[in-house]
């Protein structure tokens, strides 16, 4: 992103006074940073954050000299931060080197598939409906089916809950389930929520709600419905019988090098894939 000189000067003026205190530290830090070659900065998806944080924690034990900073804000921030150069590894819920979900393809990035993520269509625990076909889910989200009795439930209006546009889970939902059908994004029975946790709250506190979330979050007041008669389990998703799943990706600028490569290799190692990754309810890709 180009910044005008005016903007730069402005920022410098504002900051020069504020930075005074940190100045000594800054110079010292800059010197440090030049010497340390192995610094990994991971940014991007919050859905993959538990995974990357855990990996970073274990990785640090094996490579104490590498400094690793993990943070998360949104999926699209992954490829963007890497493209801009403010992060060395970007985490994203889809393959950002292709144009997906209305986002452009990020050229010059390399995507590493690190985990298979099973998703679930969820309803309130007290809902009588246990199975929905892909067609039925599409109709509900398109606004064609508006009452639970039309799909075998009680005579209650369906409350449709969706994630914010650009959410990795929504991108996968539109890709795998909606399949080109547009979601009806209006009406007094429709709302959008920000994060997975909000989705879980919204569905568990409303008996007539339907939503979708990573399978790992399904517990407490919500339950996953079977899709086309196939139960939502990690085993079914691993075998491919269950259709609602996606992949988590790590992206680097060009081929991964040095510490970044070591980190990605660690995540792809048998030990991590079948250890922590599995414990976090992701599905190993190796």
């Amino acid at each position, binding site marked *: 992103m180009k910044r*005008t000189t005016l903007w730069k000067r402005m920022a410098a003026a504002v900051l020069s006074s504020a930075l005074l205190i940190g100045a000594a530290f800054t110079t010292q830090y800059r010197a440090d940073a030049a010497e340390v070659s192995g610094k990994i900065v991971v940014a991007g998806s919050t859905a993959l954050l538990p995974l990357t944080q855990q990996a970073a924690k274990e990785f640090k034990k094996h490579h104490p000299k590498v400094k690793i900073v993990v943070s998360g804000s949104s999926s699209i921030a992954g490829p963007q931060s890497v493209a801009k150069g403010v992060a060395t590894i970007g985490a994203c819920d889809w393959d950002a080197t292709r144009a997906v979900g209305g986002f*452009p393809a990020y050229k010059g990035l390399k995507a590493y598939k690190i985990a298979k993520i099973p998703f679930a269509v969820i309803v309130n625990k007290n809902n009588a409906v246990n199975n929905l076909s892909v067609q039925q889910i599409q109709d509900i989200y398109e606004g064609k089916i508006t009452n639970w009795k039309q799909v075998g439930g009680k005579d209650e209006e369906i409350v449709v809950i969706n994630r914010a546009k650009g959410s990795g889970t929504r991108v996968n939902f539109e890709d795998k389930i909606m399949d080109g059908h547009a979601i009806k994004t209006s009406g*007094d029975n429709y709302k959008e929520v920000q994060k997975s946790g909000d989705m879980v709250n919204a569905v568990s*506190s409303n008996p007539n709600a339907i939503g979708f979330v990573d399978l790992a979050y399904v517990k407490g007041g919500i339950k996953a419905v079977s899709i086309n008669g196939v139960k939502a389990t990690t085993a079914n998703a691993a075998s491919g019988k269950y259709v609602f799943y996606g992949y988590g990706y790590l992206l680097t600028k060009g081929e991964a090098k040095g510490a970044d490569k070591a980190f990605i290799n660690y995540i792809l190692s048998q030990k991590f894939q079948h250890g922590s990754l599995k414990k976090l309810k992701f599905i190993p890709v190796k």
Partner: protein
Amino acid sequence: MEKQSPDWTDAMNLLTAHRQSRWTVKYTADRFFRFLCLGSVIFLGAVLGAIVLFVSETGFLVFRDVSLSEFFFSPHWDPEHGKYGAAVFIAGTLYLTLVTLLITTPISICVAVFIAEIAPPWLRQWLRTLLDLLVGIPSIVYGYLGATLLIPWIREHTGAPVGDGFLAAALVLSIMILPTITRITDDALCAVPNEWREANYALGGTTFQMIVRVVLPAAKSGIAAAVILGMARAIGETMAVVMVIGNVAQWGFDLVTPSSVLTSHIVMQILNVDFQSTTNHALYMMALLLLMISISLIMLIRRLRLKGGAS
């Protein structure tokens, strides 16, 4: 006295010089202090300038792709199909702020009067601390409580299928800004000299008359500042609102239809968009608009206050 010994003159000169240097130091320090204070204000101005510049630099790019009239007057927000009308969010922000202030201002002033004028002194300190606690509770905790306690309650009592909307948002915001307005009003009330209160009693006025005719008018400017700061916080609040408003780009004037305001929409989408996209530019434009709305509201209230003060 006319024939002063050289020693005497020297001593006098020395003393004057000493005094002068003390004076210089004193006044240099005085000027330096003034300079520091001025610098602080300039710094504040610079921060505002930098933020406006930062937001508008990206924001105005939206008008490369979207016409002015569409952005401001069209209620259709659907970036996937190239529709960038922000009217719903703009009207929503104004409406939500109005509803929130209608709920919270009378209650806040009531509570402030209670603390400053009626409550016994030992209770005051406790009540004030209690209010401060409310300011510090993170907005996400309010949002969480709103989403899990308030929304089911609204659903039950209004029959709305979802429950999210302006009513929930206004109630959550009211609780959030109540301590801000109350505490600053309370301070303003306490700053009214006690003699004035005594004068009221001496003239045979009741406590109620004292409050309405003496204390509140005297504290007018402070109360206005309190309401403005509360309003400013209400306009700018994001994390809690986004959890209870429903986040749908549609009108929600009936209070229980899921709708959206500028802040909630910005926070909902800003992390999820491509930096170079028109949607991102539109979101920055909304942020600028938010700034403009609060600046104009604040200027309006300041003008009203000045007029009120003159009469």
